[in-house]
């Protein structure tokens, strides 16, 4: 297709033609085009439909502030909704589709909303969809969701790869316009490490869109030469296509670099986007300024743009949006647009509401005039003007450039709650409180002239880096003053858009004011002004001005809403980086993992660990069959289980025993070398923190174990006590969880298995219950042996350096073959500990005390320990305190649900009659019925009582008998065998 609106000049590469499609139709553009400029070159102004009213919309801008021209790029799983056509770099084969329409873009069935606009005003949802209540979920919301909104997701997994990276620099320069380039150049020549980031694919900022000169060359050429010099310096990193999205604490900036978005075929092995964390010593914000529109009736038709956008399309992209243009401006910069368009052969009329402007130009100027309306169903065809004398005039044109002045881009200066300051001369907010280390230069600082930008950039770099010497010589450039008379909206009856993306009009702001929403933050939430994906970059100022006028206040009195990161929308994928799917967090494998996999184990995630849950065998119908077999085999002969994941902390030093006395509520000072003791840790508030064992391997050496889940917090707590409470104790801690592979060998035949492996005598006399020691195995490998039992059976835990873990498991299985040794997983482990009445995380659940757990007497009164004082509080020591109990169903075939509550046998069921609750439940293959552990008020004195277990969640009521929590071998004969 011909590019009928393509004109001479610009920075596009006319030799490189790129073919693309929009809504299935084929077009061609050139290298250097954006999707928007290429479509405009082809005479396409209509690019989308508005959010609420489905009004036809075209681009308002030529940059990232774009509210209207949002499209979907690519297709299938790669589909990317809500992409701004004004920043999407054109590539050959690009396919884009319009969004938020029902039917075609030119015939959108939902445009009926526009006819209903009298009803769809601010607060419409709140007022209309109040009742009937059920209608909201079933009718209103689905319909509204279908009609309103932007693009849609592919609902497929994103096949792209994203990455994260870290950068460091002396100076980060944000924005590569004249100020940014000059700042980067000044800094780079001093030898500083400089990063220059710009969201555009071509560095140069406004210089690429202007006909200005710098020195004796075109501004764009000066920019190109400066970029070339910067690129040649080893201390400079140029980052085009990189948006700095946030200014965070201590000079850390976030930035998103788009690596592949502009390529038809992504570079293989390269991520699509990289989220950079940039650590800076200093930063210069040179983010430029954004031209703001003026509101008037029907100011949202395709073809109505900011004046500087028309100028950019003409100067940078060689596109005349139309050969006849009107410029509506309240400031002198509008005349720059007019002059540039005029020079390109476009017929221009300037409409200026100021009464006293000179009309002596090469083009027509209407002083004291206002644009009062526009016409054109799918794009601008006529502009209606009220002249100074009150007469009306209509001009036929397809392009209307609007300039209400320029807003310095203060966004990043406000990310740490800084508030901008109102500048009367510019009629705009300028930066005031800056984040530490940040300087602002150029238009972002309110220096709107090119000379001001160059000088400001150089000065900012000099000050930031504390460079000595005079200012570098600056090339000559225009230094025109800003001349503006604030003018925000044209009064009239028609709908005048402030926020085009969220369809907020002057009327909506007026209505919200009438209804009492006087704070700017309330205005924002009620009307949704500035809440769209563009965050109101072109809208907020107008809304504030209208609000100020209604309230009879000055604009600075009304204030601004808070600017928050990110500066422009960021793909969720970029924030996730590589932390997706199985890589969401690290996966830790136990030393026996490979072996367990060979056995066909089913694994379960426990924190970051993968633990064997059970080891199914053929013929077993479900997991319960497997678990029952594993439990019975262990209790009847011998089983083996990987317990490496339990936390292990090595405690060494002359004061090691005193230290353990401090962290455990029970005493450790008198524990003999070669012995293990159960220990209970409390929090300082008297609640149980964790439990485990401490084995004394030498006078000054203990090995402490923690539960798997608490390995990290307990270690942290121990270090806290050591460093913050007892800093002079001679004690050192190190986590050795990963250093040792540890297996529990349990069951009546456990000793017979280990006798074949351990070189030393492990008979009951030589190595009784709760013994521990350094041993050797298999003829010399150092190992640790602990005679401890979680299952309640005769049991050992044996530990070897992790590298030998796999070999040890295979050796144990070999030695145990004669006894039909059975590997068991976490399920069987759980069943056996419930049968034995051992507490675990379910019981140490952050609300229970040592007394609740039936271990109240363990809290030593003879020594200080963490939590001891508050554990003696009156409130934690009443007669009706919860006590650990066991529970079994009266009818032995019934299940007992964990989490259920204990209630009296008779009477109503409600929270006030709650007697306690169940924490752990399972089927006991040894007893042949379900069992549970729980807490019951005064439970220790209520054994034998019959109660109800009530689970409103699962709608179960079971009659149970309260019993001892030790279902198996309460005297502990087995473990001492």
């Amino acid at each position, binding site marked *: 297709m011909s590019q009928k609106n393509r004109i001479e000049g610009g920075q596009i590469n006319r030799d490189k033609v790129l073919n693309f499609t929009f809504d299935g139709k084929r077009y061609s553009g050139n290298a250097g085009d954006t999707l928007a400029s290429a479509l405009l070159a082809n005479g396409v102004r209509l690019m989308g439909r508005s959010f609420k009213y489905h009004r036809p919309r075209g681009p308002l801008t030529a940059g990232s502030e774009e509210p209207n021209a949002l499209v979907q790029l690519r297709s299938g799983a790669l589909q990317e909704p809500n992409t701004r056509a004004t920043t999407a770099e054109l590539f050959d084969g690009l396919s884009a589709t319009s969004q938020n329409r029902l039917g075609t873009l030119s015939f959108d069935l939902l445009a009926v909303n526009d006819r209903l606009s009298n009803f769809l005003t601010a607060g419409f949802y709140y007022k209309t969809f109040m009742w009937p209540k059920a209608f909201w979920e079933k009718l209103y919301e689905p319909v509204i969701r279908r009609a309103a909104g932007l693009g849609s997701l592919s609902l497929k997994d994103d096949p792209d790869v994203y990455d994260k990276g870290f950068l460091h620099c002396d100076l980060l320069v944000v924005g590569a316009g004249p100020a940014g380039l000059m700042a980067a150049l000044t800094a780079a020549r001093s030898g500083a490490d400089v990063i220059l980031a710009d969201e555009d694919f071509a560095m140069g900022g406004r210089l690429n869109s202007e006909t200005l000169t710098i020195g004796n060359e075109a501004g764009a050429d000066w920019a190109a030469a400066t970029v070339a010099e910067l690129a040649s310096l080893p201390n400079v990193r140029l980052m085009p296509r990189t948006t700095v999205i946030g200014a965070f*604490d201590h000079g*850390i900036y976030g930035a998103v670099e788009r690596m592949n978005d502009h390529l038809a075929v992504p570079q293989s092995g390269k991520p699509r986007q990289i989220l950079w964390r940039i650590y800076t010593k200093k930063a210069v914000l040179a983010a430029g300024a954004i031209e703001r529109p003026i509101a008037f009736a029907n100011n949202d038709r395709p073809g109505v743009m900011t004046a500087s956008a028309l100028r950019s399309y003409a100067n940078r992209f060689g596109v005349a949006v139309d050969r006849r243009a009107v410029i509506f401006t309240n400031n002198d910069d509008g005349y720059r647009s007019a002059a540039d368009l005029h020079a390109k052969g476009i017929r221009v009329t300037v409409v200026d509401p100021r009464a006293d402007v000179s009309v002596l130009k090469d083009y027509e100027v209407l002083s004291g005039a206002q644009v009062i309306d526009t016409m054109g169903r799918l794009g601008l065809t006529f502009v209606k003007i009220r002249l100074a004398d009150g007469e009306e005039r209509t001009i036929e044109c397809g392009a209307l450039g609007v300039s209400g002045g320029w807003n310095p881009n203060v966004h990043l200066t406000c990310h*740490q709650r800084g508030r901008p300051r109102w500048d009367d001369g510019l009629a705009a907010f300028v930066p005031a409180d800056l984040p530490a280390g940040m300087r602002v230069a150029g238009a972002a600082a309110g220096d709107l002239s090119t000379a001001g930008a160059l000088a400001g950039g150089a000065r900012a770099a000099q000050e930031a880096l504390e460079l000595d010497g005079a200012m570098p010589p600056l090339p000559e450039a225009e230094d025109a003053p800003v001349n503006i008379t604030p003018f925000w909206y044209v009064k009239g009856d028609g709908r005048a858009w402030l926020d085009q993306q969220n369809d907020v009009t002057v009327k909506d702001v007026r209505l919200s004011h009438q209804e009492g929403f006087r704070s700017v933050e309330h205005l924002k939430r009620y009307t949704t002004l500035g809440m769209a994906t563009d965050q109101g970059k072109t809208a907020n100022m107008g809304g504030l001005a209208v609000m100020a006028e209604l309230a009879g206040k000055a604009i600075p009195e009304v204030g601004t809403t808070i600017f928050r990161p990110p500066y422009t929308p960021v793909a969720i994928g970029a924030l996730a980086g590589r932390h997706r799917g199985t890589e969401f967090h690290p996966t830790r494998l136990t030393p026996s993992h490979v072996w367990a996999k060979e056995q066909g184990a089913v694994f379960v995630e426990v924190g970051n660990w993968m633990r064997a849950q059970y080891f199914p065998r053929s013929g077993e119908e479900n997991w319960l069959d497997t678990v029952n077999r594993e439990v019975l085999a262990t209790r009847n002969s011998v089983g083996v289980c990987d317990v490496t994941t339990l936390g292990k902390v090595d405690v060494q030093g002359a004061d090691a025993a005193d230290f353990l006395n401090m962290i455990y509520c029970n005493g450790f000072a008198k524990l003999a070398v070669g012995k293990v003791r159960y220990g209970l840790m409390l929090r*300082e508030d008297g609640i149980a923190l964790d439990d485990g064992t401490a084995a004394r391997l030498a006078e000054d050496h203990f090995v402490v174990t923690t539960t798997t889940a608490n390995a990290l917090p307990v270690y942290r707590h121990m*270090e*806290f006590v050591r460093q913050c409470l007892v800093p002079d*104790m001679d004690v050192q801690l190190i986590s050795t969880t990963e250093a040792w592979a540890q297996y529990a060998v349990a069951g009546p035949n456990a000793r017979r298995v280990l006798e074949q492996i351990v070189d030393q005598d492990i008979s009951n006399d030589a190595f009784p219950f709760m013994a521990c020691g350094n041993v050797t195995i298999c003829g010399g490998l150092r190992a640790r042996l602990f005679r401890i039992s979680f299952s309640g059976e005769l049991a050992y835990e044996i530990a070897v350096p992790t590298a030998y873990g796999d070999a040890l498991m295979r050796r144990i299985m070999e030695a145990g073959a004669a006894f039909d040794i059975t590997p068991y997983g976490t399920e069987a482990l759980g069943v056996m500990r419930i049968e034995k009445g051992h507490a675990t995380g379910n019981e140490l659940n952050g609300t229970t005390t040592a007394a609740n757990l039936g271990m109240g007497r363990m809290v030593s009164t003879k020594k200080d320990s963490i939590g001891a004082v508050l554990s003696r*509080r009156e409130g934690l020591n009443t007669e009706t305190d919860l006590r650990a109990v066991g529970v079994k169903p009266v009818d032995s075939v019934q299940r007992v649900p964990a989490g259920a509550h204990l209630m009296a046998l008779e009477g109503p069921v409600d929270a006030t009659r709650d007697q306690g609750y169940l924490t752990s439940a399972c089927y006991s293959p040894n007893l042949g019925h379900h069992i549970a552990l729980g807490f019951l008020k005064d439970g220790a004195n209520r054994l034998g009582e019959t109660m109800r277990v009530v689970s409103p969640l699962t709608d179960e009521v079971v009659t149970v008998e309260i019993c001892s929590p030790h279902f198996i071998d309460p005297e502990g004969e087995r473990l001492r065998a």
Partner: protein
Amino acid sequence: MIIDHPLLGPRDSSEFTYLGDASLIDRPDPAGEDASSDFYDYAYLRDNPAGWHKELWFHEAGDRSWLVVTRNTVTHEISKVELASDVARAQGRSK
């Protein structure tokens, strides 16, 4: 945020775990006359200032030092970073 570790230099705050008010170092005397109410204060009552605050950070992904960081909770400015063990000793804690 960046925490200037007294031994390791500037480190990113993501390497640290936050605990809270550094008054946790001032554990009361369990044998004191008012031990019960002192411990109640110690365990439950914290200042929550908008401004300068001494707080405990643990270099969990680093050298496992507990640090006392003096930080402005409004601006996140950090004025001082000390080893908690030094602070504890200076406050008279020993064994």
